[in-house]
């Protein structure tokens, strides 16, 4: 069965909602939750996730909130932390990874910490049995892909196109997927621009999809209640899960 990973921005509109939503998504077929750490300067994100980041910060999101939400959800649904490197770095990487491990978090996804800079921390990740998710981009050469995936843990995050999250772009990924598979048995998940309409197409030849902006888009709607937001996200999750497994 192909897997579905859901990204949600922690603390928008508040932490209790984030925990409720994560648990509801877990019951609706999401295999892993990416708990997003809001950041003031999210350069890999498009306008939707950027807005959720700003709103979460405006409403008082603190790094501590990631820990409290993880405590509530990580035993019930597989949880990863997703965020830009600076907030993690400020917490102190050694302390951070111990904390993540003790809260049953399974890995971290850090879009601005490429392979070369991550090497410094690989022992710490290993010591705490945490995956530092490897990214592969459509701009990468075969030679680089080999380097990136040779030690990949949990899953490989294949960026669907050169661009930022939530853009309506697509690129032919067939060759790059073949290249990845020739070097690694780690499952490959595609992220960026995956929604109800694109999920089936984007999941071709890979083992799962990562969905962010499509969920956040529902969270940002201001004419529906929080309960309705959870219902709609759960419904979206069921649709995407069945589409990728058709």
């Amino acid at each position, binding site marked *: 069965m192909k897997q579905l990973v859901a990204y949600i921005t922690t603390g928008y509109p508040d932490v209790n909602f984030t925990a409720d939503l994560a648990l509801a998504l877990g019951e609706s077929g999401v295999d892993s939750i990416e708990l997003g750490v809001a*950041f*003031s*300067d*999210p*350069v*890999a994100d*498009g*306008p939707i996730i*950027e807005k959720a980041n*700003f709103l979460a*910060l405006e409403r008082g999101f*603190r*790094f501590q909130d990631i820990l409290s939400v993880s405590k509530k959800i990580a035993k019930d649904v597989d949880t990863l932390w997703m965020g*830009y*490197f*600076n*907030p*993690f*770095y*400020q*917490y102190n990487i050694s302390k951070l990874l111990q904390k993540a491990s003790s809260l049953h978090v399974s890995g971290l996804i850090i*879009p*601005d*910490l*490429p*392979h*070369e*800079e991550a090497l410094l921390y690989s022992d710490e990740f290993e010591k705490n049995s945490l995956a530092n998710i490897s*990214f*592969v*981009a*459509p*701009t*990468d*050469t075969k030679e*680089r892909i080999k380097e*990136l995936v040779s030690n990949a843990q949990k899953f490989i995050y294949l*960026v669907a196109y*050169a*661009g*930022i999250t939530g*853009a309506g*772009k697509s690129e032919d990924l067939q060759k790059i997927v073949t290249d990845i598979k020739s070097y690694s048995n780690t499952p490959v998940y595609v992220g960026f621009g995956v929604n109800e309409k694109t999920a089936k197409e984007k999941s071709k030849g890979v083992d799962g999809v990562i969905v962010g902006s499509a969920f956040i888009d529902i969270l940002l709607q201001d004419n529906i209640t929080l309960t309705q937001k959870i219902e709609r996200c759960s419904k979206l999750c069921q649709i995407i899960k069945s589409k990728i497994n058709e």
Partner: protein
Amino acid sequence: MYIPSASIFDPDDNGHFGIFGGRYVPETLMPALFELKKEYEKIRFDKDFWKEVDYYLKDYVGRPSPLYFAENISKELGAKIYLKREDLNHTGAHKVNNVIAQGLMAKRLGMKKVIAETGAGQHGVATATICALLDLECEIFMGAKDVARQELNVFRMKLLGAKVNSVESGSRTLKDAMNDAIRHWVTNARDTFYIIGTVAGPHPYPMMVRDFQAVIGYEAREQILQKENRLPDKVIACIGGGSNAIGAFQHFLQDTEVECIGIEAGGLGVETDKHGASLLKGRPGILHGQMSYLLQDSDGQILEAHSISAGLDYPGIGPEHAFHKDNGSVSYDNVTDDEALDAFVWLSQKEGIIPAFESSHAVAYLKKLKDIKDKLIIVNLSGRGDKDMIQAKDILKFD
């Protein structure tokens, strides 16, 4: 002819100056950065490339810029003050030195599209100028707040044929302009050259821009030896991202008798939260592709900077400066908005030279130096004040 030389302060192969620098960008950009690094290694010491740069620097920019003995302020201070006149460059500041070389690199790489971020608009104008000269398509990212307060520079860029994107996100200033330039670059990495305006960003930019700006110190060293037959006691320059300062310091850093001093924006005072003193008040962190000192809260969220000069209004600083601070190879201090404004008037009325608000910070430091008597000092006058006229007119209110 100026050609960069290898330095003991060159970063390692992945761009690290000690713990600082590096490449903290989305994977999509890594191949573009590898290609840029490879290209830079090819041209760094290549005579033909530098001959071409030299031609434009001489005939187009007007280099070498004079090292001017500022007699009147020297008398007042009881010292010997020389001004390195980057303000006399074409487009009015040191920015053009870097942009010419990066523009020629874009051409060599066969890229027709160029993007750049800008704060006050000086780097945007310089980039638009070079794109007009070299027939490159130019798109500039500028915070909406800066677009409003630097209307004249926005018009200049448009007149030169550039497209100006007003950035509405975040604090709507330089930091956010750079975020959007990076987003555009991630999306168009295959055919777009990003001309970064200062010694910041992911490797190889900090090293590359430093090499391009080091022509300042290379000339100044030769000029001061010719005029005074000795090295200066101090070299002073203002720091936003830090390119004019690194450029001025580079050829003096290994002379123990020369003290290089970088001046940060003290804004309303470093004891307030309205300043741009990242080295003094920040902590090491990661933003815009690099590890360096950053103004940030305890959670690592980036704070807004403040300075009277838009060019120093940035919460970070080039990673090589972060290294020099910790290493002790450069001294750093700061000057407030008021002190800079005072120096802006002082230099105008004493020497008939109107400095940019940025450069006024370096000039102002002369009055704060305690041991200035009989010293030989070079101040890097990084830009001229034309762009600041409207703002100055509102603040100074001469009758």
